[in-house]
């Protein structure tokens, strides 16, 4: 983990309200695990005061160029404009500077028994699954079930497909792929045969439903959670969730930033969310 001030290479709006940002990040890839994230300080002064957490979509490098530019390693974030911080972020350009703290947190466990893996994404929840897919496809068959509200919110499909990941799209309004919820697609898919693992990221109601489905089919599940965060390193305790077996007498609070953001299904007390 390191804290570094760096340069934005590009920041493109890929769909209304959805952006991809590349920042220069030499050496960042070393030891980086799928599902980890960074805390980005968007602007030094005045607002916003706190950093914002973003999972790492992918890393890569730009080749050296004949005019003297060396190889430039970068990390890429996929984000949605949801509030003040991301709105400011969307106005940044290549050449602007930001502070990055990371990689942070515990990522996906990719070391599990033989069999295929099913990745389930809800909207912008696709972001932490790309590196995961990249890693898993080297060892096993991987499917991505990608759900979104509408076709504008379906992101990065071709990049998954290019990796050899079978991708099934569903949208709430039917504007792309199958009409319906991604959780329905998952349940249908599990009826046909159970994979070695399901890994998911998306809104909480979706994750709760996936938890129910995976439990009923006895499939191991890992989820990447989202949370408001103050520090990103387990100090401020702003992002806690209740762990399995939590009680007021013997608290078992987990920080999304340090204990997560990826959790095994059984680590979490799922009853804490209505």
């Amino acid at each position: 983990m390191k804290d570094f001030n760096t340069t934005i290479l590009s920041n493109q709006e890929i769909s209304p309200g959805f952006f991809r940002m590349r920042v220069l990040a030499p050496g960042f890839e070393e030891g980086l695990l799928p599902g980890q994230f960074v805390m980005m300080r968007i602007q030094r002064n005045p607002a916003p005061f706190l950093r914002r957490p973003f999972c790492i979509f992918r890393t890569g490098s730009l080749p050296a160029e004949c005019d003297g530019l060396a190889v430039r390693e970068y990390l890429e974030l996929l984000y949605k404009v949801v509030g003040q911080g991301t709105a400011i972020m969307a106005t940044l350009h290549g050449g602007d500077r930001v502070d990055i703290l990371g990689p942070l947190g515990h990522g996906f466990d990719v070391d599990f028994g033989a069999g295929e893996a099913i990745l389930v994404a809800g909207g912008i929840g696709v972001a932490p699954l790309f590196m995961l897919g990249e890693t898993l496809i080297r060892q096993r068959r991987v499917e991505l079930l990608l759900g979104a509200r509408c076709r504008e919110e379906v992101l990065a499909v071709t990049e998954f497909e290019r990796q050899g990941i079978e991708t099934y799209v569903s949208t709430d309004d039917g504007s792309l792929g199958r009409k319906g919820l991604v959780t329905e697609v998952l349940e249908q898919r599990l009826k046909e045969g159970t994979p070695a693992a399901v890994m998911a990221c998306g809104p909480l109601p979706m994750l709760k439903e996936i938890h129910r489905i995976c439990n009923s089919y006895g499939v191991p599940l890992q989820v990447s959670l989202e949370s408001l965060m103050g520090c990103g390193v387990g100090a401020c305790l702003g992002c806690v969730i209740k762990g399995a077996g939590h009680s007021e007498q013997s608290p078992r609070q987990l920080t999304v930033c340090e204990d997560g953001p990826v959790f095994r299904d059984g680590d979490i007390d799922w009853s804490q969310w209505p």
Partner: protein
Amino acid sequence: MKQRKGRDELPGDKRATGTRGGKGPEEKAPDLSVTIGDLELRNPVMPASGTFGYGREYARLIDLERIGAIVTKGLSLRPKAGNPTPRIAETVGGMLNAVGLQNVGVDAFIRDKLPYLEGIATPVIANFFGNTLEEYGEVAARLADLPGVAAVEVNISCPNVKQGGIVFGTDPQAAHAVVSLVRRRIAKTMIVKLTPNITDITVIARAVEEAGADAVSCINTLTGMSIDIHSRRSRLANVTGGLSGPAIMPVALRMVYQVARQVRIPVIGIGGICSAGDALQFLIAGATAVQVGSANFVEPGVMVSIADGLARFCREQGIDYIRELIGSLVVD
């Protein structure tokens, strides 16, 4: 006698450390050390309780042996689950929190967290609180004889829990009672952390000084709130929370100035400090040391940057001992 290790020395280093500014090789680094009770600090910069975990959380990001002290998360007799989420909300120039003093409890701290801290050559200040007078006494007794705990900071001011000490922090008699009790249990340096959520903070400061406090730290967070207009709900599950960050610095500075003029014990300044310049304002206002709070979240290396900035300022100003600055405010 010079204590240079020839092995680590590069030719360039001599020039860099020895002859800068043409003052010759004998120029000394300014002395940043300060004293709080029996505590000798290498510099006056330490974290504010609750913003630095139990120290280890930041060990990968900051050299813990370059700050003046490590102040732990507030400890209670039993483990405490804290408040429901959302617990934090960003505001202009700062943030609200209502964590509710979640902590592992004093026994787990001693068993699981303290051994690591004992390996760090920086004094540990254990912050603690109680729900009742008896609990304050009980936690104090457990911390009293631990060699790894250099000092304690008694929290009589958390705004986010009903019995988090605010009762003791807003009434001079109650404050006197709790501090006297802890004083009887603990011989080591005792700092008392005060709340700003009171009409006249100096009344409490004087009461705890009389009860035997070795120092006071001020201020804890200012009570505040923030509302989501669409859901018409508070942005904190606890409804209200404590405001911290640069937004509160002018208020904190004023209170430190007032308290420092009313008590003879050292004052530790807290409130929105983000830079060496901010820390210097507190020292000039009368603080002997400072605590850095929410700035740690934004810039994990900030405390070391502040310590470096203090040294730079002293060099530029020709100040040999930083303690010369304490309470040096010029008022015409």
